[in-house]
């Protein structure tokens, strides 16, 4: 799971992440806690999250 450069930092992904794997400050970043559940992608406001490496 990766957040692309179009991220605006709205924080949806952080709120819906069940394992506290997202850090948000201006834009968001996925850290090593990620379990690839895909919730962040489903709730991303602008489609900035991809499963591609």
């Amino acid at each position, binding site marked *: 799971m990766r957040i692309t450069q179009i991220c605006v930092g709205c924080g949806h992904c952080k709120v819906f992440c069940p394992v506290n794997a997202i850090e948000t400050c201006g834009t968001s970043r996925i850290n090593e806690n990620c379990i690839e559940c895909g919730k962040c992608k489903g709730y991303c406001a602008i*489609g900035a999250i991809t499963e591609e490496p």
Partner: protein
Amino acid sequence: MKVAIIGGGLGGLLAGAALSKDHDVRVFERLDMYGGRFTNLPYKGFQLTTGALHMIPHGNTGPLANLLRQVGADVNIVKCKPDGCIMKKDNTQISFYSFRELLSPGAQAKVPLIMARMLIQRKGTVADIVGNDPEWIPITDSCCGWALSTLSRDTPASEASGIIKHTIGGGPGKYNIPGVPMGGCKAVVDSLANVIAANGGHIELDSKVDSVLVDDGKAKGVTVNGEKVEADIVISDIGHRLTSELYDAGQMNPKYTAVLQKVRPSAGIKICLAAEEPLVGHGSVLFTPYARRVNGINEVTHIDPSLAPEGMHLTMSHQTMQTTDVQKEIKLGLQDLKNMFPGKKYSVLLVQSYRDDWPVNRIASGFDMGNLTPVKGLYIVGDGAKGKGYIEVEGVAAGVSTLLGTLKANS
């Protein structure tokens, strides 16, 4: 009539609720939730939001409340008390109506002239109205920033005069002061979703509209997740620019294209705090003209305590994005909050930025492009098609009301 609505944000849901009474309405929402930038985000026991700050600028008397009543949406909007406050340089608060106290005698002498200009001036910006006076600019920046997420120098004078006429300029009872929808933003969109369902309409989540079908210059439907859906009219709640990317560029006309290229979204930052003790101390807006970045703060849990865990407060600040360096802007916003609430017990829940395709407003206030597009039967609602002189969601509602009038006239 078959109506396809692109986007289940506030504008799309308002249009859907109004039209579903007499028409076959389908709302297509790309995300797993409806509400767009006007719904709740449950987080650590708090009801944060996707955008708005759990406030309706004109409370239970404004365009949004009126349209909610018109469509039969049941929302309890509680008036904020007091009307509004301003934080002084020493961090004490005064009533918004006492703003003269912030000014030197010389600047106070300009109040009648500036207020008159605010009501009638059409040309230039709000900064021009106050003559770029360094005593006035922090006050007008705070108001423009909170209400529109623009600075005084970027806010057209005509927009300010419209807003003032709708509020204090209209006299008592014209439109009210802000109110809080009990249950937060989600109470509003849930109520609209209920109306749509009760009328036989449908909101379809995880449904991405790929294109608008156009035949001979007229909208004939949409494709959703690759599937064709016929419609007599198409209403889009995703703004003019993103909608224009859904149909053949050959449908565009030069004038529309030129305006599209010129308009810009307004950007902002919201900082959500979990407060163990009241920071603002009341349920209304606290304008913060002397902060470096934060324009205003609210603490709506004084009105609806259910938006935070028991004994806690949800405090939210808003600031206009003044530069493109988002991290720097956030840092300055956080520092403002430290300076304004020294020694208070709070923690930062979430910092949210709004810009680009998830902005404060898809088109900065004062530059809205209206409901019409170059394609017949394709209309825009939402914060890129607001009514002139209306703040935030009041503008969304006013824009939807204008569209409903247009559709009625056309029928």
